[in-house]
């Protein structure tokens, strides 16, 4: 798959109790793009992300990754291509040590042992966590857990990174480090978040989701300049775009 394209066509999804979550979402994300998915709590961001790796299957509509639609046959290939970083790293780091966890994906891909070791090392070096290799995940700090969770996805060499609230629960410095790290990735990135300053830093494009529909889709700066749109979608201008609270400039 040379084109790391993610395309969603008229995606509709209702929960088993028939609560509609997504009501016709359409967008197309190109190779190397970095796109933010923003919206109020319960707007359907997480549900949308769960469709991108085939965990949920749409009630109607289609998800295409690369050049193929997401079906039962392409599921494994899609899951390798789309690396998903979860909101709670404790859900993602399920093995007893950091090294085992990062090796989990490559081992499942059936790679030979020395290749697995090479990938684990590379991924941990990328996120600056090689020294944590033999530590159990429950003894890591929030920032370390997040970095290791990202490494556990990187070791599968995905083309597309999907992240759910990557900066939730991080202290300002860990957040800054994470943003710096994400800047260095050449992957196609899809980031669902409430951290609009992060969006401003990382993503040139933003998709606003409101009540299960795409409310706006365009360049980040344009969207954040539109105050009525932000207010309607329960959002707020990022702090760095607001005036200075002291001198009102």
């Amino acid at each position: 798959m040379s084109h790391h394209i993610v395309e969603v066509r008229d995606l509709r999804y209702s929960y088993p109790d028939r609560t509609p979550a997504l009501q016709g979402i359409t967008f197309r994300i190109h190779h190397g793009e970095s796109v933010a998915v923003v919206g109020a709590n319960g707007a359907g961001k997480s549900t949308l992300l769960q469709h991108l790796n085939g965990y949920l299957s749409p009630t109607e509509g289609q998800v295409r990754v690369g050049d193929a639609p997401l079906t039962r046959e392409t599921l494994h290939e899609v899951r390798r291509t789309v690396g998903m970083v979860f909101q709670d790293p404790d859900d993602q780091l399920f093995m007893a040590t950091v090294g085992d966890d990062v090796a989990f994906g490559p081992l499942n891909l059936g790679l030979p042992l020395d290749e697995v070791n090479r990938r684990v090392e590379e991924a941990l070096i990328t996120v600056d966590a090689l020294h944590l290799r033999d530590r159990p995940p429950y003894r890591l700090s929030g920032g370390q857990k997040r970095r290791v969770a990202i490494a556990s996805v990187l070791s599968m060499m995905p083309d597309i990174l999907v992240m759910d609230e990557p900066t939730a629960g991080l202290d300002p410095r860990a957040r800054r480090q994470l943003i710096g790290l994400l800047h260095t990735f050449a992957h196609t990135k899809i980031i669902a978040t409430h951290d609009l300053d992060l969006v401003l830093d990382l993503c040139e494009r933003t998709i606003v989701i409101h009540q299960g529909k795409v409310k706006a889709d365009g360049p980040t700066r344009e969207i954040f300049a539109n105050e009525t749109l932000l207010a309607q979608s329960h959002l707020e201008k990022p702090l760095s775009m607001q005036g200075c609270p002291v001198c009102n400039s």
Partner: protein
Amino acid sequence: MAGIESAFYDISRLDSMAGQRSLIHDLDPRIKVVATMCFIITVVSVDRYAVSHLLPFFLFPLLILAGANLPAIYFARKLLILSPLVLFIAIFNPLLDRTVMVQIGPLAVSGGWISFCSIILRFVLTVSAALLLIATTGFTGICMALERLGMPRVFAVQLLFLYRYIFVLVDEGVRMSRARALRSFSGRGLGLGVFSSLVGSLLIRTLDRAQRIHMAMLCRGFRGDIRISRPLAIGRNEFFFLAGSVLFFLLARLVNISLLLGNFFIEAVR
């Protein structure tokens, strides 16, 4: 609550010990598991009145302790913490079994007291062997070894997950119980009704988490079995360790070494 919390975090200390390197740490986990099992079985099979027979067995945990360079004080404290449980079980022996077995001058020692000592010794031996196994091998290593030795894979995976998530679960439970304690006054709110709904929501949270973990596993290509990358190899060290320890257990089980040594000394003094 602080008690439970600290007890759980203490488990992680054993795990960090397992990360060290030494002659014992580097042995194949399977060999250590088999040797420990043999040790426990032989110790348990010793006759209940044969206290002196048990003493040579202390050589095994002591050698491991020394060979693996572990802090003896830590293990002594662990044994002390667990000892009330065993004392409670063993204390009935002197009360029920009052036949006099040994007469030391005016002091008559009943069979109950002898078996009491024997239970305590066996507790110290078996529990310290198990703790040392964890401290030299690590929980993951033991699970892997058990699986390679023929334990169904499902159980091995269950054990691994239990070990990984017990901390998360306890954490969640402790947080909920703290939230309850902070909003209960003069005993109100601490009743069984509240407790049961607390446990109920803990169960629901756990199920939710299990679902998210399953999703995380599927995302990384999980198709039913967990693979762990750690090459296992049985070499010369492993062979000597296992052969040596099993021979020693057999010898100590079949021959009362303390008695022999004692007789030997008496002869020598004469």
